Each structure stands twice: as C-alpha cells, then as structure tokens.
C-alpha cells in the first residue's frame, strides 16, 4: 500500500506522523501526573509506528502513473477491515454489559470493567468504531464512483482513516481509565475532541475536492447525505464539547454549559448524533448500495429530495423530546414534540423508497441475503422512526422515558437499521473492492443474516416488554393511594427480560463474528480475477443504469 504513494507523499506522511509523535511526547511531559500521560504514550506510539511502517517501504520504486487511471480504494479497504474489528469488539462489550445486568459481579472486582465504564466503551465502539469506519469507507468509495473523480491525493484519506481510529482508541481506553465528560455519545475529553476536529476538517476537504472536480453534472443523492453527515456532525461536536480543562496537563475539563442550558445543548447534540451519524450517513449508504445491488433504479428521486431536506431541517428541532416533563421550559418541549411528529414524513419517504425500489424484485430479495440485509434495514428504519415519533409524544414519553423501552427503541434502530444496512453494504462492496466474483461463502452470509435477525427480534421484544412493565409498575398505586411497588420490585421483574436480551445479543455477536471471518477469507483467498470495470472512472457507472432515478 505504501508503494502506491509517491516519494513526496511518503515524505508528507512521515512529517505528519512525526508531528503526531511530538504531540504525544508533549502530552507525556505535561500529563505525567495524570492519566493523560498514558494517552500521550499511545499517541506517541501511533506516530512512531506509522513512521516505521512508511520507512520500511520508503525506498520502494515509485508507482507508475497508471494508478491515476483507477480510483483510490486502499483507504476504504482498510477502513472496512477496521469497521469489522470494532464491530466484534463493540458487540462483545455490549453483550458483556448485558450479562452484567443479569449477574452484576461479572466485573471481577476491577475498576475498568464496571458497568458505568464499559457502557460507553460499547456505545463508542459500535457507533463511532463500527459505524464511523463503515461510513468513511463507503463514503470515499461512493464519492469517487458517483463523481467520476479520483480522491485528490493519497495522503489525506489515510490521515482521515488512521486519525479517526486513533480518536476512537483514545476514547475507549480513556473511559476504562475514568477519562470521560459524561455527556452521552460525546464522552471523550477535550484533547481527544480537538483531535477529532482536525481529522474531521481534513475529511470534509477530502470529500469536497472530488465533488468540486466531478465529471458528472449532478451530485448524486448519496453524496448529499454524506455531506450533511460530515457538516452537521462537525457543528454538533464543536458546540457541545466547549469546555475549560483543569489545566493543560489534566485530562479533566468542565463543560462551558451548566444545568438546563447544558441539558438542551447535550440533547440537541445527542438527538442529532442519531440523525446525522446514525441516519443521514447510512441513508447515503443505502441510496447507493441498494440500487446497485438490486440492479434497479431508486423508486423516486423526488421522495429522496423531500426526505433529505426534511431530515436536515426537522431533526435539529427534535432534541427536546429527550427532556419532557423536566425543568426545561415547556415551550421548548412542545416544539420538540411537534417537530418529532413531522419528522415521520421525511423518514418514511426514505423507508418507502427502499421498499418501493425492491417492489418487483422480490425474487432477488429471496435469493440474495445481502439484498435481504438491506431490505430488513429499510423495514426497521420505518419501524424505529414510527416508534420514535410515537415516543416523542409527551404522554407516551412519560411512560417510556428512563425505562428499557428507550433501550429497545435504540437497538431497533441500531441493530435493525444501522448494523443491517452496514452489513448489507459491506457484503456488496467487499467483492467489488477486492475484485472477487462473490463473497468467500454465500452460505455464511445467509447464516449471518438469520443470526442477526433473530438476535434483533429477541433483543427488541425483550426490551419492549421490560420497559413497559417497568414504566407501568413505577406508576401503579394501591387502593390506599400509595405507590404499589418499590424500586427493587421492578428490578426483580426485569430479570428474565435481561437474560433474554443478553441471549439475543449473543446471537447478534456470533453473527458479527461469522461476518468478520467471511470477509477475512474473501480477502485472503484469491479467486479467478474478474475484471470489474467499477474501479475505472467511466461514464457507464452513473448517469445511466441503476443510479438514475426511475422518474
């Protein structure tokens, strides 16, 4: 891979890695009395190892200009492998914490493995590690093909992939050492946040330049969604993470916001992390891989426009539905509820687009597990958004809030929509990227599909039950007008559902491992090279065929 870089690019890469190593050394120095010093060592090592890796091939012959005739896919390949590693880690930790709620002493008495520290390890690994890497990999892949332009250079995409994974690594190791801001989905501390800003700006530029130089007159739908994902996540991240560190040598910082303003800022962030990380980016994925895999154009171009601008506008108002009946002023709660209901329209425009695109190709869905992953993802996307809009109604939320119903909703979206569309898209891209006729084992794809579906259904039903039971028990009164159940009574009632959830999660995890193995074998075992035209910039890929709207 390094042999693909020109000499100048190798030099740039070494300089950037050296800068990273210097930052690491500085962190070791100023943070020597603090857990930050350990992070400094990690950063330093990351920089040094990269320099050595480049150094190994530094004198390899320069690549021929022939490379410019092909898209640059190496960063996507690496990001896909990393996505699968994070998936296995994140799902395993998720199942571990699920078992901890069944048997609390599964922490083995050490600090780093207690529920409170591992839970964000789970959420960060799956959302940012697995989801984020998959988004970066597919976005760069889709961008080049739909713009018919090669990535601008061969260093910046690597910076994005490796820099982003360094961010994820700092985040999860930090939680285990107790470094956290406590803001859900924004837990990493200030220096890790700053690093992400740098990576993200480069990501944006990597994305914008091919778009600006594209050979297609129009920017394809997927790119709008990926763009919204990149831009809005940047805005959210910067605002919500404003903080003052205790000192430059302390990992700990204090948020610039407090109390009710902090709550609103946090859930403006939190809900839109759902919207622009877990939804917009993955819709971008769907709008490319679904029509390509099905060999059919997207059902409606107009629906995709309505969906796009609806999501971009409405979602940003909806965060306050996380704060119903709290000390947040009521007018903000009401706005959040109203916009959450309206949000159903653009959401279903995209969910509908999935199913209507497949309408007429059900035989393909029946035979092809990859396409079935995408179809089921569309169904769960429709279900989750319907459920979300329902839960945003104040009176419904009074029951669901604080209970496992929220957890059920989260995982209907996360397992059913996010993970399924990702696995489907990865199974579609891997053979294209590595130039294989198909996956190593289609049977294993089939097995993965059923494990994932069974795991999701068990998980979600268990949590719906447990959430509604718990919510009802909390508000049940005796005839004498006192509360009927103590908190502990509800905990006992949850127990069987927690076992069921952990079993469902185990199935999902096994599925993920099967998928990782299958992808690994596809990469390892060469097949008769099929010369796919898909990696050469040529007009046939867009503008005609599957990616043109049906209308």
């Amino acid at each position, binding site marked *: 891979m390094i042999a693909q870089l020109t000499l100048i690019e190798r030099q740039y890469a070494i300089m950037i890695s050296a800068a990273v190593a210097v930052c690491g050394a500085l962190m070791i120095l100023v943070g020597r009395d603090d857990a930050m010093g350990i992070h400094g060592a990690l950063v330093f090592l990351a920089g040094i190892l990269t320099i050595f890796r480049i150094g190994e091939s530094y004198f390899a012959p320069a690549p021929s200009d022939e490379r410019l005739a092909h898209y640059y896919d190496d960063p996507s390949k690496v990001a896909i492998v990393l996505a699968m590693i994070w998936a296995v880690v994140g799902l395993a930790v998720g199942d571990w914490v699920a078992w901890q709620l069944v048997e609390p002493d599964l922490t083995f*008495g050490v600090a780093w493995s207690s*529920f409170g520290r591992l839970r964000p390890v789970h959420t960060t690994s799956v959302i940012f590690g697995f989801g984020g890497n998959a988004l970066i990999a597919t976005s760069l892949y889709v961008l080049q093909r739909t713009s018919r332009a090669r990535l601008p250079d061969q260093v910046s995409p690597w910076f994005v992939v490796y820099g982003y994974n360094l961010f994820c690594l700092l985040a999860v190791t930090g939680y285990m050492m107790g470094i956290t801001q*406590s803001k859900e989905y924004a837990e990493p501390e200030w220096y890790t946040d700053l690093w992400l800003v740098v990576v993200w700006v480069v990501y944006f530029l990597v994305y914008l330049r091919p778009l600006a130089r594209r050979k297609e007159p129009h920017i394809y739908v997927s790119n709008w969604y990926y763009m919204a994902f990149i831009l809005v996540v940047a805005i959210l991240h910067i605002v919500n993470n404003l903080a003052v560190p205790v000192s430059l040598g302390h990992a700990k910082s204090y948020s610039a916001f407090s109390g009710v303003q902090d709550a609103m*800022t946090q859930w403006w962030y939190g809900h839109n992390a759902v919207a622009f990380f877990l939804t917009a980016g993955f819709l971008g994925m769907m709008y490319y891989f679904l029509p390509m895999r099905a060999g059919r154009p997207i059902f409606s171009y107009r629906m995709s426009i309505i969906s796009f601008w609806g999501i971009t506008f409405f979602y940003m108002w*909806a965060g306050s539905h996380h704060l119903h009946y709290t000390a947040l002023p009521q007018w903000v709660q009401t706005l959040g509820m109203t916009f959450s209901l309206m949000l159903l329209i653009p959401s279903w425009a995209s969910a509908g687009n999935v199913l209507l695109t497949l309408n007429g190709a059900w035989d393909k869905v029946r035979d092809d597990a990859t396409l079935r992953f995408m179809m089921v993802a569309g169904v769960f996307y429709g279900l989750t958004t319907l459920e979300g809009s329902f839960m945003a109604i104040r009176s419904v939320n009074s029951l669901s809030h604080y*209970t496992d119903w929220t957890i059920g909703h989260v995982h209907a979206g996360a397992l059913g929509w996010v993970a399924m569309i990702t696995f489907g898209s990865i199974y579609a891209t891997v053979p294209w990227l590595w130039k294989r006729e198909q996956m190593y084992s289609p049977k294993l794809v089939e097995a993965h599909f059923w494990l994932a579906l069974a795991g999701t259904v068990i998980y979600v039903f268990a949590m719906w039950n447990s959430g509604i039971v718990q919510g009802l028990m909390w508000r049940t009164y005796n005839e004498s007008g006192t509360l009927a159940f103590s908190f502990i009574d509800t905990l006992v009632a949850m127990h069987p559902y927690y076992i069921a959830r952990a079993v469902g999660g185990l199935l999902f995890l096994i599925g993920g491992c099967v998928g990782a193995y299958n992808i690994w074998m596809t990469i390892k075992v060469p097949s008769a090279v099929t010369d796919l035209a898909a990696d050469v910039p040529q007009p046939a890929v867009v503008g005609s065929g599957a990616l043109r709207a049906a209308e």
Partner: protein
Amino acid sequence: MSFFGLHYRLESKAIGLTLGIIVVASIGGLVEIAPLFTIHQTVEDAPDMRLYTPLELAGRNIYIREGCYACHSQMIRTLRDEVDRYGPYSLAVESKYDHPMLWGSKRTGPDLARVGEKYSDQWHVAHLNNPRDVVPVSVMPAYGWLLMTELRIDDLGLHLKAQRAVGVPYTEEMIANAALDAYAQSNPDSSLADGVTKRYGKATTMRAFDGRPSYLTEMDALVAYLQVLGRLTDAAHKSVAQAGAGQ
C-alpha cells in the same frame, strides 16, 4: 421554477449544497437553545443556593468517572408518581452550577436528585463497597477500591479555578484553600474545620464520611457528594409548598 427544478440546479453546485445544509440545519438549534441563555424565567432565583465544597466536587468527579449517570438520573419529572417516590420535582436552579448536568436518561437504578441525607453515611459506605450486602437483589457494581484509594487533593484549587472560568462563583479564598478544605470537611475536629463553614455556609455537612477522620479517601468524597444531592437549596420544597397553598 418549481421546487424540484430549483433543486436540480442546486445539485450541480457543491458549495451551494454545503451552504444550504449549514443554513437549514442551524435554524432549529438557534431558535431553541439561544433563548435559554437570555430569557430570565429559564432558571428560577434561589438566593440560598450554595456551591459544592471542594470535597463534594471531587466526589462529583468520581461519580462522573465511574459512569454512575449511566444508571441513575438526577431529574425528578413533574409527574405525580415521581414526586411521591422521590420528592419535589427538580427545578432548573438546582443544577445551575452543574458543569455538566447529570440529569441522566436511564433509570437502571433509582433517581438520586434528592438522595442527600436519606440514608446514613455507614449505609452508603457499605452499599458502595458491595451493594449486595445491603440490597440483596441489586445489580449495581461493587466499588470496593474507593475505600482503599486515597483522594487526590493537591490540584483541587485548579479544579475550582476552572469551574470559576465557566461561571461558578468560587472566590479567591476558596481556591487558595481548596485542598485543606477538602481535608477538613471530613475531619470535623481539626482546627481547619471552621474555615470550611465560614466559606461554604453553616449548612455544610462536616463529617468523617467513611468513618476514618484522618484518612481521606475517594469514598469520603463520593459519599459527601451523595449526601449533598438535593440539599444545595430549599427552592424545590418551597415551590411545592406554595403550589399546595395556592390550591
């Protein structure tokens, strides 16, 4: 030109699309968040509102470090059953000095907004050390190391300073004495104890929280924090009493 026609043109401009996304996405946040900082009614007045002592603040940081907020909320909603179970509903002013707030989003365990002085220090120490010793079916993790880990206090002054930078009114004197105040709060018989009540008010709880006055542990800090929850101001009790009187 129709909306879709216009859009067709927008789709061919990368910068136009970028700006469009930024503008459209910014409106919601601006309308909902910006006024919260300026509209006076957002946060009630509570003249009796106290600050966290350095020890309580250190305890709060341990609460954050261990991820207690992942299972415990600190926000009692305006619903009858919550008020009956946990006490008066939470007011905005009560978390006015909370950077960040810890309202939480999931109750795997009960709400803690008013847990202060509900249980004894001994109960908390035993419970944190191993929850199943006092609540046999609890699923909360055991935090055995808190009793054995000495609390770091040398940098508490810096913590208070950073808090002041984000708007908490700590004085120069509080910052200068932060480390000693932390020590003295859990050592009520020491000569330094008077300074703590002078700076943080008579209502400050001065006790050897983990039962060992001379040895300052993370357990001391965490229990001190738990015991002050809901007790920084009486505003919530008053507002409920007023509502009752008005009926």
